[in-house]
């Protein structure tokens, strides 16, 4: 057995995914007699402009539908409890945690993931700004950060208020403190926060 020291980061991630799959399987087998059996349902999602018709176990989160069924692995699973923001996607124009919502809740919804924002050849302005400002280090939280950042600038444009406004009856402005407050649901353990806020400020300024 590998020692902790020998285990690579990738090995840890792959190992925990396999463990999670085993745990999930044993849970299903260990159902008490009165429990309901797993149920499957059809659901249609439009992801990055393309419609997908799926039949999924009702327990499938939107995150797992994207990653495991549509192979869109750009969206990341961090905590799987809505605490880290790595799974952030944009649904019908609004950012949400895809780990805390069931795929079957999104019949007919339009989902935008990091794959739908830009491509390596044609980056979204926010992706380009993250590159220019070094808004990441390991990159694991980055897809969620970028989806969140794009939606945050929309929220500011639409006048959605925030905790750091001196007067919530006024329109918010795209200031550094606003970016920081509004991005608090996206954790970056490498600590690229200040560069992320600068990337966002650049994109906000370019559009102003």
């Amino acid at each position, binding site marked *: 057995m590998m020692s902790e020291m020998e285990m690579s980061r990738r090995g840890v991630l792959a190992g925990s995914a396999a463990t999670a799959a085993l745990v999930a399987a044993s849970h299903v087998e260990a159902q008490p007699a009165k429990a309901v059996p797993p149920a499957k349902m059809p659901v249609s999602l439009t992801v990055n402009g393309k419609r997908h018709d799926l039949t999924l176990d009702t327990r499938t*989160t939107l995150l797992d539908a994207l990653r495991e069924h549509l192979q869109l692995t750009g969206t990341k699973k961090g905590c799987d409890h809505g605490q880290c923001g790595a799974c952030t996607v944009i649904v019908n124009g609004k950012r949400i945690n895809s780990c805390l919502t069931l795929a079957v809740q999104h019949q007919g919804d339009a989902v935008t993931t990091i794959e739908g924002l830009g491509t390596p050849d044609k980056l979204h302005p926010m992706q380009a700004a993250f590159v220019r400002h070094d808004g990441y280090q390991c990159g694991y939280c980055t897809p969620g950060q970028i989806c969140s950042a794009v939606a945050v600038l929309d929220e500011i444009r639409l006048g959605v208020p925030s905790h750091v406004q001196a007067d919530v009856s006024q329109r918010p402005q795209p200031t550094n403190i606003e970016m920081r407050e509004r991005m*608090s649901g996206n954790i970056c353990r490498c600590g690229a926060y200040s560069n992320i806020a600068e990337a966002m400020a650049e994109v906000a300024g370019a559009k102003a």
Partner: protein
Amino acid sequence: MKPFTYERAKTPAEAAAAVARQPGAKFLAGGTNLLDLMKLEIETPRHLVDVQDLKLDSIEPTSEGGLRIGALVTNTALAADMRVRRDYGVLTRAIVAGASGQLRNKATTAGNLLQRTRCPYFYDPNMPCNKRKPGSGCAAIGGYSRQLAVIGSSDKCIATYPGDMAVAMRVLDATVETVKADGKTRAIPIADFHRLPGDTPHLDHSLEAGELITAVTLPRPLGGTHHYEKVRDRASYAFALVSVAAVIQKDGTGRTAFGGVAHKPWRVEAADDAMPQGAAAVTARAFADARPTDANAFKLQLATRALAATIAGGRSA
């Protein structure tokens, strides 16, 4: 997560009947708290009735000069509504002090009222918890209780209601409107909506099985300045250690409710009368029956200081 079946209801009465009819059924709105608890198998519904198609997502004026907030209005939409920002600033302030932008986009008004405690022992299935498993005991009493209740607790449970929105609704004297499985409706004053733990800490609120929240109504605007001061371990995206919702008039009178201190938003109307005498006079009355632990007694002083900061002009709307 335990397996479950799923349906989408078309009307509030149909949704209520569907949950009342099937054992182990629950309503599903935004799902941000329920899904989290289902993954931990703290919540194990056998059937989910999704209420997103019930058209309860608008905010309308009432004939009494207040607002009627549909149960499915998202936290973001409620906080951003210009009428709320102008006339009920304490509510906007409380909502934007809670959770993250992603969660507020999905979480609903009704779901926010129904969110469950964040007591670490409730969240840990290996520990006894009378709220999660009635009769199993309370590991929080004598345990790590820094975040937990200082007043209104019992020898069965010292959990707190974790939310911010309801604390503002308590200071505004909101009313929770519901429909039951038989189609009957009722209006529950927010003061009576959340319960104290007593001997039945597994009951967070006064809803009956299958009773669905359809709206929250706000009375006429109170005027005055609106404040929500939240003290927490991080500057953003953390639950309150103590929060203060207040509406203060020019003459120094006003009303206040506290979050993070009890099993429900904590307001003592007799304490409101002391507002002109200052924060210490208010909290002396509001927390006269406090029973803090050694680890959370600091919340009493913190409540006084947070209210003092609020009266001095703190974070107003």
